[in-house]
């Protein structure tokens, strides 16, 4: 027996979804891109970054956690929603120290790519210039918390995929940060370069050592096409 399907609309276009799928999953399969930062296909979605905010029947929801409902009207690429996303991404920039000009993740960075996609040319909020620390103690992995956007991917990947719980959030509000085994350095943990957690950072906060700028300008992931192009190519 075939799976039960439902139908809903994104920006007026009919989308088919399997029962139990989130709006994000159904949209991805249908070739409709919803911007996202904390969501990663292989990890449990937790709707923390809010970049995938959509309006479902007039109410703001995160597309990565909200189930698709039969007959729902979803607003994705409207001026209002894009404005909300722009502000969220903008705040992520000014709350950290994101210096794209010398960041090795530049061109492969999802935050930078979302900003380009949302046409953010310069931040509209004032920079906070927080004092954040670096951790170079691990032989193969480097942490630069200046660039962390608290997406939680590393926390989830280490816990759910690697079974190691190397990372966790500590602190609240503007003091919140990703800590390593409470208050240790990465070099004190059993994290390995082959761990999923070493591969999931959307920005340049967790990087593999000595890779640096090995990929030349022009060959980086988002040099040619904007983020989301792979999903949109399915439509």
């Amino acid at each position: 027996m075939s799976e039960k399907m439902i139908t809903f609309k994104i920006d007026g276009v009919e989308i088919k979804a399997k029962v139990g799928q989130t709006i994000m999953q159904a949209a991805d399969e249908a070739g409709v891109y919803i911007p996202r930062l904390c969501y990663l296909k292989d990890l449990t979605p937790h709707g923390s970054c809010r970049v995938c905010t959509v309006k479902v029947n007039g109410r703001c929801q995160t597309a990565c956690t909200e189930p698709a409902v039969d007959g729902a009207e979803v607003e994705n690429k409207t001026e209002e929603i894009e404005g909300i996303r722009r502000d969220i991404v903008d705040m992520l920039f000014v709350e950290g120290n994101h210096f794209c000009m010398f960041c090795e993740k530049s061109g492969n960075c999802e935050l930078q790519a979302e900003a380009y996609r949302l046409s953010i040319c310069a931040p509209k909020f004032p920079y906070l210039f927080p004092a954040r620390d670096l951790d170079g103690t691990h032989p193969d992995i480097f942490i630069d918390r200046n660039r962390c956007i608290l997406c939680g991917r590393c926390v989830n990947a280490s816990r759910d995929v690697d079974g190691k719980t190397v990372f966790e959030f500590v602190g609240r509000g503007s003091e919140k940060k990703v800590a390593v085994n409470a208050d240790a350095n990465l070099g004190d943990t059993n994290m390995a370069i082959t761990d999923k957690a070493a591969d999931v950072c959307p920005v340049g906060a967790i990087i593999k050592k000595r890779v640096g700028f090995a990929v030349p300008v022009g060959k980086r992931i988002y040099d040619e096409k904007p983020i989301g192009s792979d999903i949109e190519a399915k439509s």
Partner: protein
Amino acid sequence: MSDNNLKKIIIEPVTRVEGHGKVSLLLDEQNNVKQARLHIVEFRGFERFIVGRPYWEVPVLVQRLCGICPVSHHLAAAKAMDIIAGVDELTPTAEKMRRLMHYGQMFQSHALHFFHLCSPDLLFGFDADPAIRNVIGVARKFPELAVQGVMMRKYGQEIIKATAGKKIHGTGAIPGGINKNLSIEERDFLLKDIDQMVEWSIGAVNIAKDYTLKNVDLAKSFGTFDSNHLGLVREDGAMDLYHGNLRAVDKDGNKIFDQVNYKNYLDYIAEEVKDWSYMKFPFIKSIGPENGWYRVGPLSRVNICDFIDTPLAEKERQEFMAITGGKPNHMTLAYHWTRMIETLHSIEKIKELLNDPDLQGTDLVKIGKRRGEAVGLIEAPRGTLFHHYKVDEHDQVTMANLIVSTTNNNTPMNTAVQKVAEEHLSGKPEITEGLLNHIEVAIRAYDPCLSCATHAMGKMPLIVSLFDHKGELVDKKVKE
């Protein structure tokens, strides 16, 4: 473009040098110039905020010091980080790609300085109306020359793009090698115009040469003073802008030291701090701060080398050296001529490299055993550039010391200004228009970083203050 927009472009870089080149002239009781001080009051702090960064990031980070010759910083840092990464010798493809990048940068930077910044002085005269004596004036009166300047600069930038990925602030050089080779398409694109570039470079040498020879009396006296000269030379004594050993010669050409491995630079060079400038004053240790200061840059490089290994530039070098009978030439204005000899040398090297199949090689990076300290030197367009780093066991930089080209030329620039001031301030405690113009030209000959902000519209923002023997301000002129 509106006037407002135009003004913004010009002023923006000037703000980084505190708005103006600042010169103080101190007089003695007879109103003769006792001391001239060129104040560099910009403070960047790069040496501090590199600390903590991972070493492989530094070549890309540190090049942000400059928008005119970032490739120099990129490559000096990469050379240091090669050593940190345990790599003493790069693959032929990596070494030649970096050299191509460097010659491209030398070519574009020298073309920018000569055609855009300096040519108005040479073509119209130092005292010409600033409204004409600028790059727009050159474009009006000598349109072919202006086009050549623009196209030569563009060509150099295309080389940088093909080797570093971007025309400004690229990422090509990485510790232990390079991140790309030169594709056949890129090579053919660059080869298309190479002969034209060689021809224009010969023309540019001739302009600088003819000017100097026609005005040889002026050149001999204008801001001219004896000095030591320092730079890199190859093991066989040839000019080498990318790599070599340190050589310093005195005013007569006698070697103070030669073939010094630059990793030991601290045994030979020290820096003095003075309370009126953020820029330090380097000197040769064995001679001391009083007389041990030296010049760097095109003039020094041509003075110190035994020969240039490209035929056209070597011919020009011989002609240049013949003027002083093979001894070092000390004319400040000769910087322009030697800058163009180097431009010709660079384009000859570029042609040689573009025809080298090693550039299409695929062996790009080597890996070695990590080290904790390294020095990287390169001959930047404006002179010898020193980068020195220490990196801890966590791969983080713990110390950075940068001696940039303009710093090496600090005392020489002050001396040049003093010479010019002595000549144009004749016993009266006042600053004339002629004095202002001549100070401007003397500083510009050294192509210091602040000059980039100054000449484009024929207005070198300059403040000259005159102090009497009691230290009281007696005159001040501001040139906006």
